C-alpha cells in the first residue's frame, strides 16, 4: 500500500473496499477565481467567501495559496477538497525538496500533477469538487493554467472559474493585452470582480489580489470594493408600470 493510501485509510477508518464510491455534493463552496498574465507575471483575484448553499456562511476564507517558490493556486468549489489538495501539494513539494538537487517544481509541473489527480478521481466517480487556477513564473516563463473537477485542463493568457467564465472572461477578451502593467492588471481584475459582486449571488465583498513574479508570491491583505448604485433608472424603476420590478 502506498504511503498516501495508508494515511488516508487511517483517518477514513476504512469501510469495506467493495463499497462503490459515488459523486458527492459540495457543502462549503467558494465562487469565482479570475487570473491574467501581465508584464511581470500573473495576477489572480478571488473573494474570501465560503458559501453554505445560499447562506454566505464564512467571510474570511483564503482561496489562494502559494505553492513552492514559483506557483500560486486559486480554487473555487468545495473548500474541504481544496484544503486536502493543499495537503497533497505540501507533501509533493516536501518530497521534491528532499531531493536537494537545486531543482524545484515550477507551475507546469504542479499543474500537471493537479490535472492527473483531478482526472483520476473523476474516473473513480469520486471527484475533488474544485475548479483550480494555477499561475506562476519560472526562469522568466509565465504560466497560467486551469483544471476543472473532471480533469479538463488548459493554459491561456486569462482564465476564470464558475461565474467568472460568463461575466469576467468577456471583459478580459476585450481589454486584455500583452504586457499589461501591474496597475492596469489590477484595475482590470477589479473591474471583473466588481461585476461579479453585482451579479453573482455567492460573491462576497471582501477580496484579495495575488501577484506572482520571478521574485515570488505576494497576496494582498483583504479589502472591499466600492459599488455604484446611483443610476437614475434605479431610483423609481416602476413609476411607469406599477407592480413591475
Amino acid at each position, binding site marked *: 500500500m502506498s504511503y498516501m493510501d495508508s494515511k488516508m485509510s487511517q483517518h477514513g*477508518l476504512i469501510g469495506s473496499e467493495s463499497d462503490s464510491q*459515488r459523486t*458527492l455534493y459540495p457543502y*462549503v463552496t467558494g465562487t469565482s477565481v479570475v487570473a491574467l498574465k501581465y508584464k511581470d507575471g500573473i495576477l489572480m483575484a478571488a473573494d474570501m467567501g465560503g458559501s453554505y448553499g445560499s*447562506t454566505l456562511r*464564512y467571510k474570511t*476564507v483564503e482561496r489562494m495559496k502559494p505553492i513552492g517558490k514559483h506557483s500560486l493556486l486559486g480554487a473555487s468549489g468545495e473548500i*474541504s477538497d481544496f*484544503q486536502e489538495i493543499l495537503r497533497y501539494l505540501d507533501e509533493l513539494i516536501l518530497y521534491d525538496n528532499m531531493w536537494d538537487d537545486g531543482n524545484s517544481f515550477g507551475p507546469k509541473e504542479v499543474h500537471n500533477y493537479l490535472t492527473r489527480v483531478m482526472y483520476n478521481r473523476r474516473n473513480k466517480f469520486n471527484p475533488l469538487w474544485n475548479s483550480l487556477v494555477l499561475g506562476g513564473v519560472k526562469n522568466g516563463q509565465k504560466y497560467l493554467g486551469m483544471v476543472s473537477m473532471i480533469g479538463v485542463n488548459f493554459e491561456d493568457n486569462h482564465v476564470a472559474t464558475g461565474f467568472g467564465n460568463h461575466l469576467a472572461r468577456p471583459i478580459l477578451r476585450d481589454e486584455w493585452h500583452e504586457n499589461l502593467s501591474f496597475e492596469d492588471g489590477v484595475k482590470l481584475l477589479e473591474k471583473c470582480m466588481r461585476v461579479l459582486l453585482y451579479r453573482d449571488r455567492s460573491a462576497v465583498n471582501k477580496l484579495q489580489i495575488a501577484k506572482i513574479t520571478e521574485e515570488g508570491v505576494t497576496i494582498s491583505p483583504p479589502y472591499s470594493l466600492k459599488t455604484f448604485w446611483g443610476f437614475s433608472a434605479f431610483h423609481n424603476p416602476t413609476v411607469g408600470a406599477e407592480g413591475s420590478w
Partner: protein
Amino acid sequence: MYVANRASDKITQLTDNVYVCRSGSAADSQVVSDYVRYFLHQHTIQLGQPATVKVAANLVRSLSYNNKDMLQTGLIVGGWDKYEGGKIYGIPLGGTIIEQPFTIGGSGSSYLYGFFDQAWKEGMTKEEAEQLVVKAVSLAIARDGASGGVVRTVIINSEGVTRNFYPGDTLPLWHEELEPQNSLLDILNTSSPEPMNM
C-alpha cells in the same frame, strides 16, 4: 417530532484543555468525539505534554473529511493551549476546517447570524462573553423547534475549565413569550374577584 432527551450535554470533553460542541446526528458526533478522544490520549502520552487545540481540531477534520459521505455532523472545537492561547475551529459538514474568533453551528444557528453580526465585539471579557452566548442560545431556543431545555456553557482558559448550567426556566423571555405560572388559579386569585370577561 419526539424529544428524546430534553437535557442533553452537547459539549464534550476531548482533553483537559480541549472541548468539542456537537451538532447534527448525535450518534455521528459521539463516535467522532470518541475516536478523537482516543487518538488525543495516545498523542498526549507520546508528546509528553497537553495536545494543542489545532491538533485536536485537525483530527476531527480528518475524520469528518474522510467520511464525508457517511457523516452528518457539524462540530466546533474550542480550547486553550500554552502556544496559541484560546482558539476556536469550526468544522462544518464536508470537513472544511476554519479558525474563527467566534462561530455558531447547529439548526438553531440560522436564527443567530444577524444577532452575532451585530452583538459580537473583539476583546470581550469572560463575563460579557458568557452572557452573550447564553443570550444567543436562549434566542435560538425561542425560534428553533430543535433547540430547548437547558443552556450549558464551558469556559476554558489558562486557569482551567468551568462548567455552568442554566435551566430553561431561568432564561430571559422574548417576544410573545409569557411569564410561566403554576396554574390559572393563581392568576384568577391574584386579580379582583370579578367574573372573567369572555
